[in-house]
């Protein structure tokens, strides 16, 4: 048995037992960040979770009982059996980084760009990791919990165009 196969079996056991939980009928699994690509590949190819519903992120900065800073959430669905699965992975500063899912699902492209834009999580191997909703020169990650609702004065730095100068 080669090492790939062993890792695979380990993952299978992991997804079957250890880190899974359930809340109001929704199955959830927690996977370490270094195994996330492998785990989702396994779920997609062998468990039939062929639809990536969404990728999103939660900043647990002031969340009661949270040990890690960021929780990355992958929502998967199986279009044949209509099962759903939420896969989560936890990341920490200073440089939160995780492999990109674009090799598995092309739809992950914009979802990951949005997470990068809002939370500053780097996706390794992403073909086009640019800001998507905010302007290119924006310096902060606004959905992080240490970013204030009012902003940090970014609006004041926008250039003012007058009728004469335009």
């Amino acid at each position, binding site marked *: 048995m080669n090492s790939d196969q062993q890792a695979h079996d380990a993952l299978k056991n992991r997804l079957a037992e250890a880190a899974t939980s359930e*809340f*109001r009928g*929704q199955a959830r699994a927690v996977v370490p960040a270094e195994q996330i690509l492998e785990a989702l590949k396994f779920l997609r190819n062998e468990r039939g979770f*062929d*639809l*990536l*519903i*969404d990728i*999103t992120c*939660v*900043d647990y900065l002031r*969340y*009661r*009982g949270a040990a890690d800073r960021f929780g990355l*959430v992958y*929502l998967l669905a199986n*279009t044949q059996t*209509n099962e*759903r699965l*939420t896969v989560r992975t936890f990341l920490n500063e200073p440089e939160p980084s995780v492999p990109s899912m674009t090799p598995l*699902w*092309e*739809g*992950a*492209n*914009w*979802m990951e760009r*949005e997470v990068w834009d*809002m939370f500053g999580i780097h996706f390794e191997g992403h073909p086009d990791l640019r*800001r*998507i*909703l*905010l*302007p290119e020169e924006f310096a902060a990650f*606004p*959905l992080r919990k240490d970013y204030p*609702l009012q902003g940090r004065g970014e609006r004041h730095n926008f250039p003012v165009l007058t009728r004469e100068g335009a």
Partner: protein
Amino acid sequence: MPLAPVETLDLAHDEPQDYLWTLNFGPQHPATHTTLRLVLKLDGERVIDAIPDIGYLHSGFEKIGEHLNYNQYVTITDRMNYISPMSNNVAWHGAVEALLGLELTPRCKYIRVLIAELSRISDHLLCNGAAGLDTGAFTYFLYAFYQREVIYDIFETLCGARFTNSYTRVGGLMYDVTPLVIEKTRAFCKNFPKTLHDMERLLNRNKIFVDRTKGVGVLTKEKALNRSCSGPVARGSGVTRDLRKDEPYLAYKDFDFQVCCSRAGDCYARYLVRMQEMWESLKIVEQAIENLPPGPVDVGIDQRTAFPDKRMVYSTIEGTISHFELQMSNRGFEVPHEEIYFATEAPNGELGFYIVGDGTETAYRARCRPPSFIHFAVFPHLIRGHTLSDIVAVLGSLNIIAAELDR
């Protein structure tokens, strides 16, 4: 006849492409309908590449969701997909109730189904009407918009607002249905089929429209799944997923309706799926209005989420306490320290909310899964190789709403 896409064109980076022409489409263009921008690379009339540039309407809705409480945030969801706000209301409070573990009353479920389906009709009317308008069928658009006014009128009678309804509440609704609403809905069910037949006769076999949409913007089933498409866009490509049938939420189990699909995957198929879905929605509306269960619309006072009836507040001690606790800012209802995802079949596709609760009245994180955002990512793939004038046909068939796209 539409031209076949150029798949063989080699875009090597070292080759100089001086003959290509760059064109800015939007953000203020009458055919985009909303504020979105495309940077196009053109070879004559042919689109070689399209680079979407979005965010012009970004208003930080998800950040606001972390500062408004569960009942207040429904006003923000109105402004996401503003052509069917009732669907967003239903999705948001469905997610909140899933987090709280609330079971709604049968009457509330039926009314929510009713408003969700009416707003689906209204959304599809605008989407198909605008698709017709962009491809030269102005009369068709007016036929569609007249019926949208009728639906606005029903909503106004129901909750006082035409456009931004904010009709749902945690555990219930703003008001119960009045006899006048039932009367107006019955009248709509009676008159709408005539318009829908007229619309089908106007465009389904119209040579100009069919030539502009058939074979344009083809999305295969594999691509639709790979790119996370949902709703009419996916069903137009042969994906049979419809959450109303596959994961029956609210009271959809009780209703008799069909899931509409097509295999072609082009703009015309998406148009037809939407047309057919209006017939099915009309069937659901008729069933909902005739079988409306009696009883209260809000959950009882034991759940402590919806305000009790005024008579109860003034005459019983439970009612008084319940009202007082909900009114006080430091009491409110109990929210678990948990996370949940709840999705509904909105007119545009799967609209879901991922909510993290932290025990307070305000969500810790309120993520919206917007179907427009997912579908607009597919757009460059659909338009490559087609002509400049096909852009409006493809945009119209995807039904991109910038407010939902940028949030």
